[in-house]
């Protein structure tokens, strides 16, 4: 791993008591949800990580605490570095402060987080569904959301499925 990245990581670990995870040549720091805006400001202003490359989440159902890990990735074009952040979130009503003020393209990334995972982003200017229709119910990328195949209607469960099946309106 790059020495510059090591120095930056040490700096952040001391200031925010983050945990370090290294896999091959990738560095990832684990921080708490409240610290995320401060960490992003430090990364952007002091260490020149100008670009937010990725903001996504992973669902670890049926573990409830923490259930979601929100993953950020920042790229520094000047120094050619890539650093990641992991924010563990609770399962009940997960919420996260927005980093839209720090990186402008977090706007659509956070809308997608709300849409797919149901993670409430506090302070977001425009939190509505982005890839799914606006009247969709549920948050698909959660692990307890079914993939959505059609249930096979055998003779033993014919009536049960008949009640649930979406017939056309008359």
């Amino acid at each position, binding site marked *: 791993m790059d020495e510059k990245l090591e120095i930056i990581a040490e700096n952040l670990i001391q200031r925010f008591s983050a945990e370090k995870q290294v896999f*091959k040549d990738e560095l990832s720091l684990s921080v708490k949800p409240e610290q995320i805006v401060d960490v992003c400001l430090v990364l952007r202003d002091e260490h020149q990580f100008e670009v937010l490359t*990725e903001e996504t989440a*992973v669902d670890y159902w049926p573990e409830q605490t923490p259930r979601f890990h929100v993953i950020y990735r920042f790229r520094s074009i000047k120094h050619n570095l890539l650093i990641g952040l992991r924010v563990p979130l609770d399962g009940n009503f997960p919420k996260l402060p927005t980093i839209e003020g720090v990186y402008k393209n977090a706007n*659509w990334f956070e809308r997608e987080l709300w849409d797919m995972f149901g993670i409430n982003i506090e302070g977001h200017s425009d939190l509505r569904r982005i890839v799914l229709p606006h009247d969709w119910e549920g948050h698909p*990328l959660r692990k307890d959301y079914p993939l959505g195949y059609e249930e096979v209607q055998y003779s033993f469960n014919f009536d049960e499925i008949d009640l649930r099946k979406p017939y056309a309106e008359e």
Partner: protein
Amino acid sequence: MTEETPFTLKEATMDEIKHLVTDRAIQGETVLLNMGPQHPSTHGVLRLLLELDGEEVINCIPDVGFLHTGIEKNMEAKTFEKSITMTDRLDYLNNLGNNLTYCMAIEKLTGLDVPERAQTIRVILAELQRIASHLIFLATTGLDVNATSVWMYCFREREIILDIFEICSGQRMMTTFIRPGGLWRDVPVEFEEAVRDFIKIFPARVDEYEALLTNNPLFRDRTVGMGVLTPEDALAWGVTGPMLRASGIEYDLRKTNPYSGYEQYEFEVPVLNEGDTFARYIVRMDEMRQATRIIEQALDTLPYGPVRSNNRKYVPPPRSELGTSMEALIHHFKLWTEGYSVPEGSVFVSTESPRGELGVYLESDGGPKPFRVHWRTPSFTNLQVLPLLTRNHLVADLVLLIGTVDIVLGDVDR
């Protein structure tokens, strides 16, 4: 019997977007126009809500999600080898590039080796795919400004490239040719001859297209100075690819973080400073020429050897061995029934697609299926810049600006 009340747009339906449009729209001074998902100039199913003051665009609100097919969730339900077929369908003009990115992620997680011949052929295929994608950009840009001969010429060249892909894999677009460990199978004998014929004629053809558009006063009038993206805005909004390079920032993942043997080839990265539509067009034309250079160098240095790794835990054995070797049979059985299990961990791998930085975040829990796949697609990030670019431009310029961002809706919605 089929009488219905006529459709009227009531005040109440504006509630959803009230916070996005200016006060003038609510008062009725400016017009809200829907450039709907079905439109010949939006390059796919993109819906734009335009707020117009006469012919001038005050704001444009993109509404995406019409091509969402749930690829990320679907990939979690398939084994690793089967999920590669889904990667073709993401950015459907960069099929081999998507395959390459996903296979590089799996190779990074498992530690698979890729033989040299496979790496060189991967580079050739990725650059051919880049040329094909830029040809579509050129064709649709020409079509948007009503230069239909440009469209026809570009598709004629693209047909040659698609025929080359058909020689390799049997499929024109959704090839799934690049697999973890190398390629699916060795390229046939006609491949090298076909590629050499193509790169012999192609530079002259690029000059032809340039002669049609670059010094054309009509084209220059419509593109020079339109949709200027400053470098600070480009970095703040996370724009990558030709849009970033046309705004003055030299950042190409093939040069800064080389993958698959790109460090061996000598090529330039075109960078311009103006940041307008014309600059982006010139950057993409130059990239086509540089891609031809890379293909030529790669063909000259194409080594002999295997095209897929020998690691039988992940790569199936050839069918001829199945009759004689017991281990081959066991490996074949294991791979076909359960699929290989990738060790636990998470990686982020990104490559340079024709649109920008295409990255995949792959997390595995040690099982045969991916636990989480997230695609960092360039079109999703680049499309966010569109409202910024189109302020105070006319509707006619808007059409060209959508084309110059070069989005593919499969990338945006996944």
